[in-house]
């Protein structure tokens, strides 16, 4: 298995505090990995560091994505290279319709990849198809980006964007937070539809329940800024029973 995403001993700070303390992970193309961990383990920091958000300083290690050095790249360059982050709290941008945003983003990514931009008609067809696939109504496309959307609608919109931008690597940052069972099912269905051999997905979650719907190939436990245990899908069920306490104690003992 050639590693599609290789994170080596990554260390990162927020301000003066070290949050990622030697995080390592290898993912192959087409694989779905889940990272579970208690609050404060650095899960969100991981997703922000991988997507290049300001305020996070990489102090050690590196990340190789599809043969490229990810840490050197700006956020939009990472997007052009095929990275997608589904935000835990998707942003509202007043005055900008969903449709406009999707078109601008898609064409930006295509340009970044050296491809031709889609003209209005082709784009419309393309988006409508993706929307239909995911069961997203036309009127959601016309609404202003995330303005007045319910939690579930915002998350579904993230998945729609993922479908339109066709990333090679997607990080789902606590996509299940704030969703009820029905919304969870709908969002998960969407994600599952987007699984493919060319696409790797990193699912970050606090609760096991999401993994009933998005079945991972591998499960990792993250505590204190790094991975402390890895296993198959059954690891998630074990965690559900044991909780995170034993991992945290072990970390404290090792510190």
């Amino acid at each position: 298995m050639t590693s599609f995403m290789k994170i080596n001993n990554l260390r990162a700070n927020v301000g003066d505090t070290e949050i990622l303390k030697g995080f390592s992970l290898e993912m192959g193309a087409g694989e779905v990995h889940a990272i579970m961990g208690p609050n404060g383990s650095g899960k969100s920091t991981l997703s922000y560091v991988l997507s290049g958000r300001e305020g996070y300083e990489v102090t050690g290690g590196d990340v190789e994505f599809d043969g490229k050095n990810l840490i050197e790249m700006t956020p939009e360059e990472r997007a052009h290279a095929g990275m997608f982050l589904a935000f835990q709290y998707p942003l509202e941008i007043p005055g900008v319709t969903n449709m406009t945003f999707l078109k601008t983003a898609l064409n930006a990514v295509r340009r970044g990849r050296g491809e031709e931009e889609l003209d209005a008609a082709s784009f419309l067809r393309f988006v409508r198809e993706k929307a239909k696939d995911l069961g997203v109504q036309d009127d959601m496309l016309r609404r202003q980006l995330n303005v007045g959307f319910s939690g579930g609608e915002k998350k579904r919109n993230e998945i729609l964007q993922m479908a339109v931008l066709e990333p090679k690597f997607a990080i789902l940052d606590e996509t299940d937070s704030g969703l009820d069972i029905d919304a969870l099912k709908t969002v998960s269905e969407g994600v599952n539809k987007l699984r493919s051999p060319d696409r790797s997905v990193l699912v970050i979650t606090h609760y096991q329940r999401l993994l009933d719907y998005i079945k991972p190939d591998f499960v990792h436990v993250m505590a204190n800024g790094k991975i402390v245990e890895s296993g198959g899908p059954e690891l998630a069920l074990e965690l559900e029973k044991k909780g995170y306490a034993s991992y945290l104690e072990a970390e404290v003992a090792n510190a």
Partner: protein
Amino acid sequence: MSEAKASIDHETVSQVGDLAGQNYKYGFVSDIDSDKAAIGLNEDTIRFISAKKEEPQWLLDWRLDAYERWLTMTDPTWAHVDYPQIDYQALSYYSAPKSMADGPKSLDEVDPELLRTYEKLGIPLIEQEMLAGVRKVAVDAVFDSVSVGTTFRDELAKSGVIFCSFSEAVREHPELVRKYLGSVVPKSDNYFAALNSAVFSDGSFVYIPPGVNCPMELSTYFRINEANTGQFERTLVIADRGARVSYLEGCTAPMRDENQLHAAVVELVALEDADIKYSTVQNWYPGDADGKGGIYNFVTKRGDCREARARISWTQVETGSAVTWKYPSCILRGDDSVGEFYSIAISNNLQQVDSGTKMLHLGKNTSSRIISKGIAAGRSSNVYRGQVNVHAKAEGARNFTQCDSLLIGDKCAAHTVPYIETKNPTSTLEHEATTSKISDEQMFYCRQRGLEAEEAVALIVNGFCREVLQNLPMEFAVEAQKLVGISLEGSVG
């Protein structure tokens, strides 16, 4: 406080003095001497201008009266703008259109910055030549080949719409001009209006006869290179009973002009059930990144909803000029009349904008709507100054005002100064204002989706301005959106 109020370089003003000495010659059969640009302003200058245009006595008298009043007035100082004192005696008040022999011979000779902007705005090469002042031959070819010029004149003639230069209107329709000129902006209204009334060069005249819905949008674009439409434009638009017209002024391409001071006056008159929509997209040269060489844009624009159910709507996208001072206003005289003001004012580098509107509610059941979006970047200063005034007899007046400011970077400033005054208890006035910046989260979200930082800013700012952009006629709206992106270049570090 100091950076945002940085004043325009004195060099800029002296440049104006230098240019005043230039000689222009174009299309005049007469003697070279009589075409020499007159420097300075006195009664003779005015007589000279009026004679050159072959104006009737009543108009010359009108100009002279305005000049007398101007002499008694002083430069306004209350606006939040800072510029070196203008020496009115060092300016030229009349110059024939630029000779093509003096202009650039081809686009190669044109400032590459200017060309870059034209390209970004998607302006075709032929139009670029026209805008940059390259050979007039190219211009004629455009019009003749496209035949737009002739087609539209025919259509308008059929419906009785008069759309011509102000000078032509004085010759062909003097009774109309005389009836309405100065009836909305009196000669003594303010310093720049008085100056304009004395020395105005030319401008547009529009008259829509009763019941006529003007068959096309009237645009000044076609007039750009005709006469010398620089400094002191005078425009008069009259919509008779039940008439409707949409008028577009300006264009997105950066307009350089040797004349630094622009003091235009625009008067709109809407009679019973008439509807005037006046849209401006202006990108006067703002000066370089150090604020040198930009244009001062001091404009008095006012619309009179003279009779019942008249409606006037101002929409503007201002991204240029070194210093802008303009307050398009509406006098809501007729019962049930409506006034609207939609504005986007963008300032970058060292630009200073002090702009807004006045809505004067006089009649019964009048309503006004003000949506102002100010975006400040660089080290610029952006001020909204508005007045909503409800007269004691103005029953049932309604106003809604929303003025929002967006600050990009921490070296610019945004101010909001609204005056909300009412003497009538049945009025309902609502005013909201917010000041904010583009959040880091919004920027990150866009960039994570593949947008470059400047693309993200353009997208978010266009969203911020959406309500105003929706009010522009279609083709202007598309251009304006591009312009918004371009004018914020370099604002995101």
